[in-house]
């Protein structure tokens, strides 16, 4: 075994624009996805294991409204967002009153139910064959943006417009969430994270705040779902496995709890690792390489938890003092 081909290949990959555009688009999409987890886990103390389910509801509702119903994409996006928020309220209403760990179990079950429905309601979702034909209006926009990128030499990168729109959306959302976190509204959320009973005793409806947190997280999952759908150009149930929720948690821990900008950095690190390890040329089978990708992410997480448990941007005191 020689290392030469591996080194050559990985450097080549890192040097190519294709690699970075692909990896950073995914990083942007899953950063939006994880902003929702951050709001729930880092700022409200609600453990949501169903983010991939919300992503699926958003993406499929949008896809179905455009491809099957024939709505305009621009109309389908807000409708799908509202539908996803309603789904968040629907599972929150009966289960958010339960202890945090029960809510976690309910959300993961919910997320799997959504995926099974997507797999089996073939008439609506195309099942495992996938759902196509919802992105023509986006492609028009994308082409226009791509032409506009000619001066910077990116006119050959047909994924560059999606990268740009994803990251602009991400920055707007992260900034908005950061602003909200500093308002009296955000203060109540953090207090709910600390002790719900204390919050109730002071006249605040803790339950209503948890519901709002879940509904907003669901909307963020939906937005991430739209970009994922446009990135793949088709929807397949496998894109919404619980695995993706757990990648979100890896991003969360890496970036640090209770930091929205930590989420962005965490996502860039995780998706750089995940995508770079695709190019590893080792004497292993394809499935072994696939597993190895997660081993690498796992190792990075273990090292981080050992040496910097609060994550890259988390506040150590908020971790140590939360009792």
């Amino acid at each position, binding site marked *: 075994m020689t290392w030469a081909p591996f080194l050559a290949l990985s450097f080549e990959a890192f040097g190519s624009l294709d690699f970075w555009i692909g990896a950073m688009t995914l990083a942007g999409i899953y950063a939006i996805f994880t902003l929702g987890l951050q709001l729930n886990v880092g700022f409200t103390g609600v453990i949501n294991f169903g983010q991939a389910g919300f992503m699926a509801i958003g993406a499929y509702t949008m896809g179905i409204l455009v491809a099957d119903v024939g709505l305009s994409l621009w109309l389908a996006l807000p409708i799908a967002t509202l539908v996803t928020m309603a789904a968040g309220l629907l599972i929150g209403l009966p289960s958010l009153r339960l202890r945090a760990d029960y809510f976690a179990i309910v959300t993961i079950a919910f997320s799997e139910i959504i995926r099974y429905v997507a797999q089996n309601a073939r008439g609506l979702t195309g099942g495992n064959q996938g759902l196509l034909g919802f992105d023509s209006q986006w492609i028009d926009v994308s082409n226009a943006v791509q032409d506009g990128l000619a001066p910077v030499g990116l006119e050959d990168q047909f994924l560059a417009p999606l990268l740009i729109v994803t990251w602009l959306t991400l920055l707007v959302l992260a900034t908005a969430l950061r602003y909200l976190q500093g308002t009296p509204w955000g203060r109540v959320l953090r*207090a709910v994270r600390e002790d719900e009973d204390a919050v109730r005793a002071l006249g605040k409806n803790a339950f209503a705040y948890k519901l709002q947190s879940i509904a907003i997280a669901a909307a963020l999952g939906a937005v991430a779902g739209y970009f994922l759908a446009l990135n793949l150009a088709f929807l397949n149930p496998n894109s919404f496995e619980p695995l993706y929720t757990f990648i979100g948690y890896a991003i969360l821990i890496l970036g640090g709890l209770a930091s929205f900008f930590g989420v962005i950095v965490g996502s860039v690190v995780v998706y750089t690792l995940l995508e770079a390890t695709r190019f590893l040329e080792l004497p292993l089978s394809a499935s072994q390489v696939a597993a190895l990708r997660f081993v690498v992410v796992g190792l990075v997480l273990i090292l981080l938890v050992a040496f910097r448990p609060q994550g890259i941007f988390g506040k150590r005191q908020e971790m140590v003092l939360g009792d």
Partner: protein
Amino acid sequence: MTEPLLEVSDVAKQFGGIRAVDGASFDVERGSITALIGPNGAGKTTLFNIVTGFERGDRGTIVLDGERIDRRPPHTIARRRMVRTFQITKALSAMPVIDNMALAAPDQPGEHLTGLLLRAPVARRREKEVRERAHELLEVFGLSDKAEEYAGTLSGGQRKLLELARALMVEPRLVLLDEPMAGVNPSLGRRLLDHMHELCERDGVTFLFIEHDMDVVMAHSDKVVVMAQGATIASGPPAQVRSDQAVIDAYLGAQVKA
């Protein structure tokens, strides 16, 4: 005489086989300081939990200012300006002391997403008022220099003080304190009592407090309610309760003989 601010009638609560509260009835007069006493396990904290909506009683009624509040959730009861503290303090540890205080303020439109959007200037103005008031109260309770510290770094006694100060941010009419003096050093404890009297006399705030220290109870309350085994067995002015035979038998006996 005007009607009482709080009327508790025949409240009961059973946990499995344990009758934690079993026929508790008493009134709290407006502008008074009432002490609730009783041996450990008498059901005092459970009664507080029922009155403030944290537990649902099996029977009985609770009337606050002429309005029934049993079966209402805790936050709507607190909004009627009846606020409580907890026997085991609930400082919001991973938040700064000042945020603990500001959180408790009522009428902050910025606490709602619609208010943030539509009434941003009102929210900002309110936030300024709230912070001023919070600093005033922290000053009174000797916590000024801790304002920016995380509440989790406070000592046990300081947390008790923070919890009382935070309750006062709600601008309460009635404050329920569950053993406010426990773990607080005597000089701070005196300060706390002085402040209670001052609020009562100056602003007409009514207090109901659970306390085990008989000297404090006798010296600082207008009325004493005695609980034993879940039931209220006596109530009245301190001097009268002190000589009540049932109370002596149930509770004070050991101390009086000693």
